[in-house]
């Protein structure tokens, strides 16, 4: 893992952490939803501080360069997160529909 990639990992981790804490303070992010991002920034830090772990994993899995492994790992994690967000949006949409329907039926009963 090159020095510049390690520095970028640290920068990414710090920015992620600052954005998350700022949004918790501004009441824009729930604690439950912030856990993922905190874990992600810790993982980035670990990769930057202990590049040996990344190199060992990369060569064990047959990657030509550790950086390729880092990219693929980050893409995989973000894709999984994207999918879970997509599923959550579906759930929220159906819950919103239920609420709107309940509200409409209540108003009908009262009228």
């Amino acid at each position: 893992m090159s020095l510049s990639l390690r520095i970028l990992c640290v920068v990414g981790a710090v920015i992620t952490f600052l954005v998350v804490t700022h949004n918790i303070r501004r009441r824009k992010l729930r604690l439950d939803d912030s856990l993922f991002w905190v874990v992600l920034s810790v993982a980035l830090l670990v990769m930057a501080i202990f590049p040996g772990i990344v190199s060992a994993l990369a060569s064990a899995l047959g990657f030509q360069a550790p950086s390729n492994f880092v990219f693929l790992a980050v893409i995989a994690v973000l894709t999984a997160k994207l999918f879970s967000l997509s599923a959550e949006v579906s759930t929220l949409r159906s819950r919103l529909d239920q609420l709107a329907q309940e509200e409409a039926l209540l108003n009908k009963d009262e009228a």
Partner: protein
Amino acid sequence: MKVLAIIPAYNEEACIAQTVSSLVEACPDVDYLVVNDGSTDGTGSICDELALNHVDLPINCGLAAGFQTGMKYALRHGYDAAVQFDADGQHLPAYIPAMAQALADENADVVIASRVLAGEHIGGARGMGSKLIAGLIRLTTGARISDPTSGMRMYGTRMIELFAHDFDLTPEPDTVAMLARRGAKVVEVPAHMQERQGGQSYLDLPNVVRYMTRTCCSILMFQWFR
């Protein structure tokens, strides 16, 4: 002193009627509100049939939102204190007056019904989790709370207003820690509890792990940013 017992209920058809009737019998001066949190069993129809004082959330919103519903009700109806009261019969209503007394006498914001102060020994993994959380709270806030995982907590007017309006406040130990660190006065009174009287506990292993992770992270890290 007007006290409201907030009873969040999600699929508690097995014990909700018994819980409310023993509460009313033991504490006729205490009002109660059952928050039926989108139950899919007979909880809602039992509340209707017995004409219990209740609200029905049309969808399941979880304990935090259900409890917040009760706090909004308490605020709008001018209650001086609100107590978290489990629907499953674990909490004994006989301790509510003592908690209200402690709230008034000590000008406290939060009163916790502590099994530890009553000499109960919380054994096994549950006891270890409880001790860990108590240690973390002591470390980060300096507050000594003997039974942080006790679900029977009474809140005064300042806390009712806070819970009613604030974003993402759960009625859990990490919130108690945060309130204590921000200067809320937290006191405990001794109280016994009993086993749940029916229905199912949601505390299976994945939920316990999730609960402990969330609580510990919240106490150690997040309370500094809130």
